[in-house]
């Protein structure tokens, strides 16, 4: 009896020992691979800084030219209302056709045309119209330019009407006007750098979590070292798990650097929820995504193939999991497919913990979905591992 427990605990020691030596081996190999180390460092620091600073989905400095056919006080007043940060006035046109030519070349984004007798008609109380041409090659930017322009013109019209009716501000106050007071939650300053830098971090984590273990495994196959492991008493789990453990450790470290070394000092990104929960969830996400990478490595022969395959998986995951497009806007079948994307759950978890201060009481369903997905992928990869050599 006693002997059996000793041999049992001895076996457990050996089991853990194997996991430890294999994980250490992966870490040593990773840190000796200079290009990977540089790429990793860049991606978790500079790249996040750049996307936090640079990416803007809001309208910003749209170039505007004006054909002013009226050259009156009213027309100039209107033109002056198209100002920065939304629009940037870059010149006046002598002829309306010139504007279209410049738009074809792409040097202007919007053309404002004010007809002759604009001031006159306003003063006379006649209805009048102006024309705004917007380049919507970049659809979101074009639509928001049109939207902003509409608001500017409407305000201008309101002001003109008010002046005509009351001639003073007292008159304006008596008019039935609805003002919409909106309150923005979670990001009161509407600081875009928060969203952008967090989504850059999520993208980077996803790419490394899938690519690092996949290429590490493919490299072993390419160099033939995996044969040496196959004839050793290691089980497939003991061969695959250390890769995931090592990469998870590295990614957690890199995430800490990105969050506390770049995003907080540079953009003031808050961590409103539990830091421990965040890192625990990041580890779970890395494990799940690594499972996908390892599975990919079992159906490919070399690093080039596995690189291409993971690209094929990662690209739709990044685009469709809700970073760039809200899930609700996607067709039903894409929505259904994305239930298999661990990133979909992790996005909700990460924004939830960082910006909303949510805890497990809110995020438990996402956490369970991610864990189940990870377990299934990893199990499948382990099952495939042995079969691929036969």
């Amino acid at each position: 009896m006693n002997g059996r427990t000793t041999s049992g605990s001895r076996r457990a020691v050996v089991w853990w020992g194997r996991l430890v030596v294999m994980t250490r081996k992966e870490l040593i190999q990773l840190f000796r691979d200079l290009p990977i180390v540089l790429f990793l460092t860049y991606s978790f620091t500079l790249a996040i800084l750049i996307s936090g600073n640079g990416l803007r989905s809001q309208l910003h400095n749209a170039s505007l030219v004006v054909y002013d056919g009226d050259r009156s006080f009213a027309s100039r007043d209107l033109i002056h209302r198209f100002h920065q940060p939304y629009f940037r006035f870059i010149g006046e046109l002598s002829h309306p056709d010139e504007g279209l030519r410049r738009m074809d070349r792409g040097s202007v984004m919007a053309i404002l045309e004010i007809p002759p007798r604009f001031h006159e008609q306003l003063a006379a109380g006649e209805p009048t119209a102006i024309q705004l041409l917007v380049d919507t090659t970049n659809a979101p930017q074009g639509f928001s330019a049109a939207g902003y322009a509409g608001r500017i013109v409407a305000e201008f019209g309101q002001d003109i009407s008010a002046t005509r009716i009351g001639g003073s501000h007292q008159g304006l106050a008596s008019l039935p006007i609805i003002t919409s007071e909106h309150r923005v939650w979670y990001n009161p300053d509407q600081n875009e750098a928060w969203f952008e830098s967090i989504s850059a971090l999520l993208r980077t984590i996803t790419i490394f979590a899938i690519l690092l273990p996949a290429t590490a495994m493919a490299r072993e196959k390419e160099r033939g070292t995996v044969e040496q492991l196959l004839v050793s008493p290691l089980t497939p789990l003991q061969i695959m798990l250390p890769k995931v453990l090592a990469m998870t450790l590295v990614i957690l470290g890199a995430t800490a650097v990105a969050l506390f070394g770049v995003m907080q000092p540079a953009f003031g990104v808050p961590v409103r929820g539990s830091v421990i929960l965040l890192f625990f969830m990041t580890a779970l996400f890395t494990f799940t995504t690594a499972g996908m990478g390892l599975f990919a490595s079992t159906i490919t022969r070399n690093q080039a193939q596995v690189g291409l395959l993971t690209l094929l998986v990662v690209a739709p995951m990044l685009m469709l999991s809700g970073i760039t497009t809200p899930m609700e806007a996607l067709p039903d079948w894409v929505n259904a497919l994305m239930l298999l994307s661990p990133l979909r759950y992790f996005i909700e978890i990460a924004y939830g913990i960082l910006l909303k201060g949510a805890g497990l009481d809110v995020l438990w369903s996402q956490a369970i979905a991610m864990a189940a997905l990870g377990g299934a992928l990893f199990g499948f990869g382990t099952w495939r591992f042995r079969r691929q050599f036969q």
Partner: protein
Amino acid sequence: MVAPTSPQPSALGPQHTDTVIKVSSFVKRYKKNVAVDGIDLEVRHGEIYGLIGPDGAGKSSLMKAIAGVLTYDEGTVNVFGILVDSERAAERVKQWIGFLPQGLGLNLYPDLSVEENIDFFARLRLVPERDLLERKTRLLAMTRLDKFRDRAMKHLSGGMKQKLGLICTLIHEPKLAILDEPTTGVDPVSRRDFWAILAELLQEKGMTALVSTAYMDEAARFHRLSFVSNGKELASGTPAEVRALVPGSMVTFEAAPQLDALARLKRTYRQVEALGPRLHVFTESTDAEQAMSDIATALNGLAPSNVRVDEPELEDVFVALLLRQVEHQEADGALSVSAMNRDHDGPAIEAKGLIRDFGSFRAVDHVSFRVQPGEIFGLLGANGAGKTTVIKMLTGIIPPTGGEGRVAGADMKIAGNAIKERIGYMSQAFSLYLDLTVVENIWLFAGIYGLDSRATEERLQWIVAMAGLHGYESNLTGRLPMGVRQRLALGCALVHRPRVLFLDEPTSGVDPIGRRRFWDILSRLAREEEVSILVTTHYMTEAEHCDHLALMYAGRIVAEGSPSDMKSQVEQEAGRLLEIETDIPGRALRRLKEAGFSEAALYGTKIHLLSRHHVQDEARLRTVLSSDGMGVKAVGGRPLSLEDVFVHRVMTLEQQEAATKRGAGV
């Protein structure tokens, strides 16, 4: 294009000079490492010039510089009288050169068929379609690849790939062929084929060839050669001239107990080898009597029996030259008999009717054999004969389609994990982590096999001493010389004191001293620690070390026995070996084949053939050759080598197979 007969420097053809390549004080550095350190070389028209030396000696660098694909740091390289010192000069000589880079089929496209590969290289070189058709037909017939025209290159065996590589290199009939280790990793039959084809083409087309090799026994095939080691030339000249540099004789005998005899001999002689039951000693004395009495003294009372004294082979000469250069580190006494829990309950490995199918292809077909504890068992066979598949089944990498096996007392099917704890394995490809240091690799495998820290430290010391790794401990494995790497791999395979060791071509690309040391370790493991060893190799000189051999052909074992059994089986079947020396070996060989000596083969500059009736055959071949005006210098009996056995067996089977196919086809 007509070969110019008078010196004419033109774009049409190279200047006809007697000297094709002239290299003086050539130096090539890679950052701080000096790869080639002042080599002089002169290759004359029509020669097969050999560059021989261990891996990393600088052969490839030199050949690439001559082919105009690598710059060099000092010295001059003249090819066809043109100084190759710039991109433009290199472009000028490239049209007359065919270059076959190192590595099996590396210059070929795996997904193209045999014919498509040839066509591609011909069109790249602007060979006219009519010439292409004619040359292709001839070369394919000569290499016996014509049956495989439509087969994708990746499905060819190693030997076939190399022959195809040769065709693609020579399709534009270059004036100079530069072949970098064309026979590494190729089985003896394909190797012999390769040399025969090369010799014939060269003679016919008046080509010149510069060829490198790591097989020392191939040195005899060159007209002249340079022996290179560590970037320096140790010897050069004709094989006979090189042999004369190290006068001495090779004494082969048996003495019991072998281990004692070995230890005693090593005190006096540096070149001592145990080949199966025999001992092989190189002495500097050329007189047989003198050599024997010296050895008797060294043996100090142990009586030698079955003594033979031979002229040393070129390989022995090279080892002697290398030993002069390097300070030999002795690993003596490092092996201690370790207490392993063995159970003497039967064979270490037992295979019973093993079968393995890949789709419709049967790679292994009812293979059965036994390996006793402490036995070195050699599995021989051409590339693709199924050796590696047998090893993969026994080590549990792939499951068998049928049959049974027991390894180290455990059943292959039900106790896979128990087997894995008890075996060590070293694969063809170097299978350690190149980006880990020596010590990190040992720690890793110690951890995998569950050794505790005390045992790990003890085994680490043992491996370092056994493999001679002192001073390399914290080097990255990728930077170690090939021989040292292989010994480290062996050490890692032995970290958990396995009872059975599987070695799949462990010495491919290792220099002769490294190989000898490796086999020294293997012998002692088997003799002193009773480790059973199953090994595959393409070096037939190494097969002599084995206690028992099995020859595989097309997935089956076709011959089995100790090396001397194998030889006597062939002698009984096909007769004894005759060695013939003539003035013009190539032509003589053709005449002999026409005259009905179908098994005659070129071995170096000598012709070997098996003969049942020595006296009659000798008389007949003398008349055949002298009727053609060729002088016969000498004809003599020679003991069969394992290479002769291998080639005889495989050729006979190939002929039988071809005959039955032809019979079935009609």
